[in-house]
């Protein structure tokens, strides 16, 4: 047999090259790789995850350091070399447990193995230089160049930093950027139709999984220290669903009542829709829809696992009016495609791919979808508009646009009473809430509630 069985550093290299070519998101690629190799031990699994995701997450910072030691600009390097140097630099600069020699040598070996012997000396030189000088690298000073400082220190494109500092101030922006880089435990929702929260917590603790209470929702818990989620028996049995607390709040503010008809127009992977079905407690019906068969499949898997019966999943484009649903829904959940800047902590590639231009296009798409799906709301029924982004144009401005809608008329609903005390603020009385990571213990998220008047 040939000696080409990839080791874990080679998997990381391949993942980074794919991400670089824009052929996938780092989290998905890590998951695919680890799913294929379920039997590797916990340590290797965590290493692959940490280095692949960390290298993407800290890319601006790493490139800044690399360019101080390389004559070639990072952007001009061959993709293989770029990936090998970035992952080596990440291990040198951001991880304590990896010896410098290993971080350098492994990247050099990978480059040779992939047939670029001639450039292995270059990779070796750059990485060894970084290793030797890592304690005296000069960075932009916070006092003199605050925006550059934030951008490089927290690897956030400067246009986003500039925009947020203008909106939320310097300190708040810094808090948010810090929160994105912090590793957060996984937030999950207890499927109370199958198990009580106390029983689930006890069962997970028995397997040495760390369990904490959620910050805002009574049926939320946060778990960490597990090896492979798909192997936890309680997950396979559908006793819980992975969902951020911010997203759980959506069904909470929707005030779902027994027998309600609910439409979730962009539902995949189905967190909110299954939550709604759970709250209906075997009554009513949730119509969960999304654009592609792949997304529909994903939802079906989750539904089967959770064992809920009051939910129908179909593949349907939210832009196309479904005449049968006109004025049928007690609640329409419109959690729409957005720029995703609130979940950068989990999906770090988003920050490099998003642009102000794309955000403008998204605002248009959101409005196009809203003007279709708002017609499904009954008179007196509820429209929930939410996104997982931090961008007033997509959030507050779309909410106001809905209130000014001429065709179907809406009014804002005070959502304060559905929220825990620490989330109640001036805007919640006006019908909306913008969650900010660091300020709140969850993803960045926007939610709003409106009532149909006519």
């Amino acid at each position, binding site marked *: *047999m*040939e*000696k*080409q*069985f*990839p080791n874990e550093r080679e998997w990381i290299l391949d993942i980074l090259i794919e991400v670089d070519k824009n052929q996938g998101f780092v989290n998905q690629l890590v998951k695919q790789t680890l799913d*294929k*190799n*379920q*039997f*590797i031990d916990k340590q290797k699994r965590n290493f692959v995850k940490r280095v692949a995701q960390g290298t993407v997450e800290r890319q601006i910072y790493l490139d800044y350091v690399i360019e101080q030691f390389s004559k070639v600009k990072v952007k001009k390097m*061959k*993709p*293989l070399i770029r990936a090998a140097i970035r992952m080596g630099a990440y291990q040198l600069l951001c991880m304590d447990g990896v010896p410098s020699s290993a971080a350098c040598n492994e990247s050099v070996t990978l480059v040779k193995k*992939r*047939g*670029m012997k001639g450039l292995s000396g270059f990779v070796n030189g750059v990485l060894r230089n970084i290793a030797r000088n890592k304690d005296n690298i000069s960075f932009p000073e916070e006092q003199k160049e605050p925006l550059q400082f934030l951008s490089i220190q927290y690897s956030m494109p400067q246009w986003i930093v500039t925009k947020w500092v203008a909106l939320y101030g310097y300190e708040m922006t810094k808090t948010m950027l810090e929160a994105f880089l912090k590793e957060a435990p996984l937030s999950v929702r207890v499927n109370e139709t199958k198990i009580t929260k106390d029983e689930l917590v006890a069962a997970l603790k028995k397997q040495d999984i760390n369990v904490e209470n959620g910050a805002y929702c009574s049926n939320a818990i946060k778990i960490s220290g597990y090896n492979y989620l798909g192997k936890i028996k309680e997950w396979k049995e559908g006793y819980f669903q992975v969902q951020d607390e911010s997203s759980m709040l959506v069904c909470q503010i929707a005030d779902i009542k027994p027998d309600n008809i609910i439409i979730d127009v962009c539902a995949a992977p189905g967190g909110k829709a299954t939550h709604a079905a759970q709250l209906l407690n075997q009554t009513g019906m949730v119509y969960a829809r999304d654009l592609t068969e792949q997304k529909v499949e994903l939802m079906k898997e989750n539904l089967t696992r959770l064992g809920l019966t009051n939910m129908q999943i179909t593949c349907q484009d939210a832009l196309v009016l479904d005449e049968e649903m006109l004025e049928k829904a007690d609640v329409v959940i419109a959690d729409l495609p957005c720029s995703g800047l609130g979940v950068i902590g989990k999906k770090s590639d988003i920050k490099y791919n998003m642009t102000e231009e794309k955000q403008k296009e998204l605002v248009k798409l959101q409005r196009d979808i809203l003007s279709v799906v708002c017609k499904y709301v009954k008179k007196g029924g509820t429209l929930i508009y939410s996104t997982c982004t931090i961008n007033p144009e997509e959030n507050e401005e779309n909410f106001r646009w809905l209130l000014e809608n001429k065709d179907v008329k809406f009014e804002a609903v005070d959502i304060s009473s559905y929220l825990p005390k620490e989330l109640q603020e001036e805007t919640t009385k006006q019908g909306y809430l913008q969650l900010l990571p660091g300020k709140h213990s969850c993803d960045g998220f926007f939610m709003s509630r409106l009532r149909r008047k006519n």
Partner: protein
Amino acid sequence: MAIRNIRVEEDEILRKKCKEVKEVTERTRTLIDDMLDTMYEAEGVGLAAPQVGILKRIVVIDVGEGPYVLINPRITKVEGEQVGDEGCLSLPGKVAVVPRPYKVTCVAYDEDMEEYEIEAEDLFARAICHELDHLEGILYIDKATEPVRMVTEE
């Protein structure tokens, strides 16, 4: 000490079943030594006798833990699964995804025809499965779950 020719591609000998080894003669010992040399020279982690044109149930493996010689080997237990790339010295430049057990227990004879047992995991387990298949005329491409890829050198 000699490097033997590795049979490649469509060579029919790769598709034949191998015969049990009854006794280890001088010629067998030379064959084993040559197989090890050939494997190391080709930077492989395993080699089966048919790959150098001999239809005998002999395999050599070294995944970095030192050389193992397996005569008349048989797998007695398999556990778990691993899915990953595999390549073969007889199919140069190609690679494909092959699912294999994560752990195997294998009983074989050494060069003195003493029976011994190996418990192997991960790459070692994969190599055992791969080489033992050669003794049956099976190549990894027969078991690949995804199309065979050419190894690209960027």
